[in-house]
């Protein structure tokens, strides 16, 4: 924290040492992205974009991640609200369960999904009786993305809802709102920056999803080959295509990160000042 006073030389030396100790990780975080940015000439990039891999993968990624986002926000918001307003041990257990996919390796999630929806899986027999095949379809891509991205949204939404003063909701109720009205008119608008941030994180995670998708949905162009899988496929034939795909993904992700950082600040600015203490 800065107090606006000049730094003592010894403090400055200490801070310089800290930065020096952090140099390797900073190098690893930043330099590869720069390398990616300068890896290809505009001509290379253009030829990458024209590759038959590019268009379908981009379209599939856009489509599936948007559907994923709708599912995650639509089902994750009520879940987060319930978790934020429950205090029992059941709720705490459920909250921990929701976080599981963050720590479980994506490949394991892929296998688990196969064991659930695959032909010999838990629901394999009833699903094939209905003539429904889930693995290696676009639906499988969406399911894999939902599982790995939902925790990021739910976590952020729970935190945002928990910060809301319960008295404020009681006030909304005494002013004539039903529980639902108080939620929609007061809780959601107040939590909005947190919800938007969580949704952006979840979207970024869905966009980058690779391992679970590869195992559960395969790598079929046009059906299950999303951008990350197309990069994987392109690497075997034409590195330029892989780089072009990577650049587009990186640009979208950077845009998301920027929005993520700016949105809460813009919101606070719009509300006049930082929120006062409860």
């Amino acid at each position, binding site marked *: 924290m800065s107090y606006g006073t000049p730094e003592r030389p010894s403090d400055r030396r200490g801070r310089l040492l800290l930065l020096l100790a952090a140099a390797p990780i900073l190098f690893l975080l930043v330099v590869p992205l720069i390398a990616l940015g300068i890896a290809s000439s505009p001509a290379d990039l253009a030829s990458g974009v024209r590759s038959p891999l590019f268009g379908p993968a981009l379209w599939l990624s856009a489509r599936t991640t948007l559907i994923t986002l709708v599912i995650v926000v639509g089902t994750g918001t009520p879940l987060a609200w319930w978790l934020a307003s429950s205090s029992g041990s059941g709720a705490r257990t459920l909250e921990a369960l929701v976080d599981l996919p963050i720590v479980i390796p994506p490949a394991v999630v892929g296998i688990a999904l196969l064991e659930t929806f695959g032909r010999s899986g838990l629901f394999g027999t009833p699903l094939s009786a209905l003539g429904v095949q889930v693995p290696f379809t676009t639906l499988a891509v969406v399911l894999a993305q939902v599982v790995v991205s939902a925790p990021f949204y739910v976590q952020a939404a729970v935190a945002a809802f928990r910060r809301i003063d319960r008295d404020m909701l009681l006030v909304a109720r*005494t*002013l004539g709102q039903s529980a639902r009205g108080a939620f929609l008119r007061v809780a959601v608008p107040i939590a909005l920056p947190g919800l938007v941030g969580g949704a952006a994180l979840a979207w970024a995670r869905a966009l980058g999803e690779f391992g679970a998708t590869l195992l559960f949905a395969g790598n079929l162009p046009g059906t299950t080959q999303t951008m990350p899988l197309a990069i994987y496929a392109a690497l075997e034939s034409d590195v330029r295509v892989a780089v072009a795909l990577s650049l587009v993904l990186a640009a979208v992700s950077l845009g998301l990160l920027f929005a993520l950082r700016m949105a809460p600040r813009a919101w606070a600015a719009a509300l006049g000042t930082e929120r*006062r203490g409860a």
Partner: protein
Amino acid sequence: MSWSATIRMRLGALDLDVDLRGGNAPVAIIGPNGSGKTTLLRTIAGAFRPASGVIEIGGVRVFDGENATDLAPERRDVGYVPQGCGLFPHLTALDNVAFALIPRGAPLAERRESALRIMERLGCAHLSGRLPGSLSGGEQQRVALARAIACEPRLLLLDEPLAALDAPARRALRTYLASHLAEQGRPALVVSHEARDVYALGTEVHVLERGRIVQSGTPEAVARAPATEFVEAFFEG
């Protein structure tokens, strides 16, 4: 109009057992921290369900432990101003007041017009365009009071409306509250922690300690014969 609340309940470490009633004049509640003042207001507003008791507001039984009557907060006709005012940070002062008029179903423009008239009556119309985050504590209280009054409640519940204000703001708001509550002729239950506020507001004061009413009466009478150390210190300070 009158109200009464007989409440018996346990909430965490608090064991609340009170029997209160009031008419058109404001009633003050005083008591040490953790004595159950805020829980009392929240329970009357409908946040908690008492184990037993009866709550009546303006002739309507909103809670009855005997026969499962337990009206939701939105059907109790109370105006609640919590500590810290509870203004919605994403709405302007005007829209905070207009929020109370949503159940009437009028279009936004009309609600805003009515809200502005209420704010004019309470002398805070000049704050209408401001967001709560940019208002001072005293200004927030005025807007919160306007919002609570907007839906014509049959009982006002004000939790420490004068806390967290500096001395001049406190003096101004004290006079303001006393005159507006008297003018409204509306039942009000006001939690307070300063003797001067109680003298200015309350025709009657109840002392709540560890969930029980330990003394009731006019501020003068209670100050003359304090029943507990807390009351003595309260009126000395």
